[in-house]
């Protein structure tokens, strides 16, 4: 039976107000064979939003490598898992909370952390590390300073209170992120293989149990209103769509879920994130091939007078949905009580394959759950290629009169400068397993109870991706993996957060498709499959799109934690080495400070060789330090190793086309390392397949000096450190 669609408050059809297209509404009616009820329509609008359905991106994601000998659980579950030996798996995922953070940065960023942590909890794992990748407008903008300050405070507020160490990440500033800031958070957990939980509901008659916070009106429509549309002038009106976080409850929830899993009381577990109960229940039902019947009157509410549709899609935080055998219900409720949390039986697993909801005794929802999770219409994005980039004519670039001054200016660029102001606001150490803290190439965390460690990082080459999305996708993977490799760890798996503008406009669709292809090829070359990920589209405002920003998280493994390598120089008299491949170029470099030119193409196979060399050096303890050469080129990498060690260095390099390009240029896969000179021959013997090892100088002294073709940049270490450390605090205080 089919009737007219419900009209919304504004006089347009309700489905339109909820963000569904005419064609999508028609498809809903066709699938259902009738006019959907209002709660059903609300559910479809959320589940078919870009944020929940990936309707513009999913067809492109199939190109990622997702299998490998270490993969225990690939994409599709709450988070991916890889084997790390000793019967343990590392579980991880990165996720965006961009749009809420642009509207209300403190709660937006805080609940971003809360959401990704629950994804890890849902797999049954114990979270052991957090990372963040943040992008804002430049610090001369009052709004960007506000967003930056408050987002960092929000991450600290939530992450510190739940007791997961924050071990790394990245922060970038560019006017392209002025309206659409990016807040991506990654969580890493550890779990024994035999304790990994799936979200698939199983066992007809088993109970559906809602655990944690009560349900309120916060975050209604977050996934559709906020996350699946461009930002505009009315963003302030969207503030009620941002959720409010309570980290204390999250900590209790984390402890409870681990205790329940440890006691074997859970059949399945799922977190409530975007689209709340609707998304969680339909995912659990579809994945398990069963139905779920929910009695909405049993859902503990925080406020009176909520409509059934609101209960179904509320994004109230700190809630989990579990499947529990009836015989275990009393034990679950008792364990929850001891953790001072609610665990409420709200329904049961059925054999209908349908999602049913009762409200005041009446059926208000009956939808076959695959309609919500699988039958969304997918869209091909237009793929209009941008014209190929042209290399910068070096002759058009003025040579600096004073290389030392140019160096200091580069160190002061907030994109290059120390992010201490950020990471000092985060607890980096809780759990007493953090071996390498933020500020180096990658965070290194001992796997609790073992002698192994993981190295983790988040990175992205957005300028390169804007210029050449295929090569930029590769560069994003390889930069992240190189960071991990510099600690001596072997990159074993990846997660990704694809932050793009509106895919229906301009060349964004092409950039998305091409960068995914580049990432996939690089990941295949280095043997690191993708096990989880997230897509955030519509990061665009009337002022324009963001850079295509494929943030890549890499997890690396150290079989012997004690062999990890830091980025700081350690000893006077150590040899300084340049290890790797490629010629530096000024194109798209921080030195020129603009997204322009044609940066050198990455060589994934050569990077894979470089990673093996670094891992072997770590195993044999040949290196004192290793540090990736990335933004700001060799000069910045050398300065950072010196600042970290509190000791200077003198190096001499080949000038290539020009001294300033050799010193400040970027490109290739290069690492500044140091070693006891007695180890030089052993390290050089490992050079193979396009990777070279060259001694370029010596650690020592109070200055940092680089000579190239007769030109020398020489700056006192204390000056480099002062400028590098002071840049961001001064930019924030000056205003």
């Amino acid at each position, binding site marked *: 039976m089919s009737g007219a669609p419900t009209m919304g408050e504004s006089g347009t059809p309700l489905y339109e107000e909820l963000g569904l297209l005419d064609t999508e509404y028609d498809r809903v009616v066709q699938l259902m064979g009738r006019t959907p009820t209002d709660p059903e329509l609300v559910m479809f609008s959320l589940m078919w939003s870009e944020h929940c359905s990936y309707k513009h991106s999913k067809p492109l994601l199939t190109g990622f490598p997702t299998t490998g000998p270490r993969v225990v659980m690939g994409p599709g579950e709450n988070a991916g898992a890889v084997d790390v030996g000793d019967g343990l798996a590392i579980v991880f995922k990165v996720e965006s909370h961009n749009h809420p953070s642009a509207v209300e940065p403190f709660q937006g960023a805080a609940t971003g952390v809360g959401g990704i942590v629950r994804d890890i909890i849902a797999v049954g794992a114990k979270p052991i590390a957090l990372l963040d990748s943040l992008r804002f407008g430049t610090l001369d903008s009052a709004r960007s300073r506000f967003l930056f300050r408050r987002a960092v405070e929000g991450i600290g507020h939530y992450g*510190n209170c739940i007791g997961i160490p924050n071990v790394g990440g990245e922060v970038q500033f560019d006017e392209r992120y002025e309206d659409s800031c990016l807040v991506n958070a990654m969580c890493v957990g550890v779990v024994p293989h035999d304790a990994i939980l799936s979200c698939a509901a199983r066992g007809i008659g088993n109970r559906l149990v809602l655990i944690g916070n009560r349900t309120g009106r916060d975050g209604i429509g977050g996934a559709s209103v906020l996350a699946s549309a461009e930002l505009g002038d009315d963003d302030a009106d969207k503030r009620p769509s941002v959720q409010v976080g309570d980290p204390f409850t999250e900590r209790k929830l984390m402890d409870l879920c681990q205790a329940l899993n440890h006691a074997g009381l859970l059949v399945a577990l799922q977190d409530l994130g975007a689209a709340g109960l609707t998304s969680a229940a339909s995912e659990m039902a579809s994945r398990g091939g069963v139905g779920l019947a929910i009695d909405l009157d049993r859902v503990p509410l925080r406020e009176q007078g909520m409509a059934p549709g609101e209960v179904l899609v509320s994004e109230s935080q700190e809630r989990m949905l579990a499947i529990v055998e009836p015989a275990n219900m009393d034990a679950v409720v008792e364990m929850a009580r001891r953790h001072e949390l609610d665990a409420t039986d709200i329904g049961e697993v059925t054999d209908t394959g349908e999602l049913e909801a009762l409200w005041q005794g009446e059926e208000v929802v009956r939808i076959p759950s695959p309609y919500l999770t699988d039958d969304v219409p997918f869209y091909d994005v237009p793929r209009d290629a941008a014209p190929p980039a042209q290399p910068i004519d070096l002759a058009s670039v003025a040579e600096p009169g004073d290389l030392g001054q140019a160096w200091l200016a580069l160190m002061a660029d907030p994109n290059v400068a120390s992010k201490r102001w950020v990471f000092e*606001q985060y607890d*980096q150490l*809780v759990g*007493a397993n953090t071996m390498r803290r933020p500020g180096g190439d990658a965070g290194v965390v001992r796997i609790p109870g073992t002698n192994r460690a993981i190295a983790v990082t988040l990175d992205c080459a957005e300028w390169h991706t804007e210029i050449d999305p295929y090569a930029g996708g590769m560069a994003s993977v390889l930069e992240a993996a190189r960071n991990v490799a510099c600690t001596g760890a072997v990159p074993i798996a990846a997660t990704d957060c694809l932050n793009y503008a509106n895919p229906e406009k301009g060349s964004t669709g092409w950039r998305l498709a091409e960068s995914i292809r580049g990432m996939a090829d690089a990941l295949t070359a280095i043997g690191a499959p993708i096990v989880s990920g997230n897509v955030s589209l519509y990061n665009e405002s009337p002022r324009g799109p963001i850079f295509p920003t494929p943030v890549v998280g890499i997890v690396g493994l150290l079989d012997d934690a*004690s062999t990890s390598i830091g980025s700081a120089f350690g000893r006077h008299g150590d040899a300084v080495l340049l290890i790797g491949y490629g010629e530096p170029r000024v194109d798209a470099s921080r030195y020129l400070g603009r997204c322009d030119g044609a940066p050198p193409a990455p060589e994934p196979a050569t990077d894979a060789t470089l990673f093996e060399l670094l891992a072997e050096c770590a195993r044999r303890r040949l290196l004192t330090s290793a540090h990736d050469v990335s933004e700001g080129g060799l000069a910045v990498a050398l300065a950072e190793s010196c600042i970290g060690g509190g000791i200077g260095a003198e190096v001499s390099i080949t000038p290539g086309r020009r001294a300033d390009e050799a010193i400040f240029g970027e490109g290739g896969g290069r690492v500044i390392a140091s070693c006891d000179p007695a180890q030089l021959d052993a390290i050089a013997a490992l050079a193979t397949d396009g990777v070279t090892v060259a001694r370029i100088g010596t650690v020592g002294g109070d200055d940092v000096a680089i000579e190239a073709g007769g030109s020398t940049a020489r700056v006192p270490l204390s000056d480099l450190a002062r400028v590098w450390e002071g840049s961001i605090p001064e930019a924030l205080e000056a205003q």
Partner: protein
Amino acid sequence: MSATRVAVLRFPGTLDHESAARAVEGVGAEPVFTHHEDTALPQGTHAVVIPGGFSYGDHLRPGALASRTPIMAAVTGHAKDGGKVLGICNGFQILCESGLLPGVLRPNASLSFICRQADLEVADSGTPWTGGRLAGEVLSIPFKHHDGAWFGTPGEARVVLRYKGGNPNGSIDKIAGISNLGGNVMGLMPHPEEAQDPLLGSTDGRVLFAALIA
């Protein structure tokens, strides 16, 4: 003979109980997790550790709610009998809120959370907590807190540890840790349980745990 028993308290929101327990094991003692609802310390408890974290989510004031729990009455009795109590970070805040140590912990002068490795100078070599180290000797121990600026009358306590160099949080006299006049109750904002292992950069925190069983 069984190992010396050390009660490691656990409130809702306590975060550092596992690393504190490992540190207790590291000095050869037996850690026993003891919950907020318990009305007595475990049989044979020799000393008590109140680890860091955000007990009760820092609601009201850091440490305020935890200080009113049943277990704290038992800890107070233990301290009055001369038993040793070590409060770390939130544990220090709880000890001040309980009146077992004087003063209060105010928000940092920067009004922000700070996580940093710190050099701590031994200010009073006469308490058991620094293992006979001389005044002026330095321990490298990290701190991480939002409300760590001790405020009070230094003469009402024994100043055991001071921040060396600059004052990171605005505490009176750069105080990082104090004991009661009797010397058996110690509170400090830095985290000795995170300075136990050379892989993590420092082992200087062991001396405070060793003091529990000395």
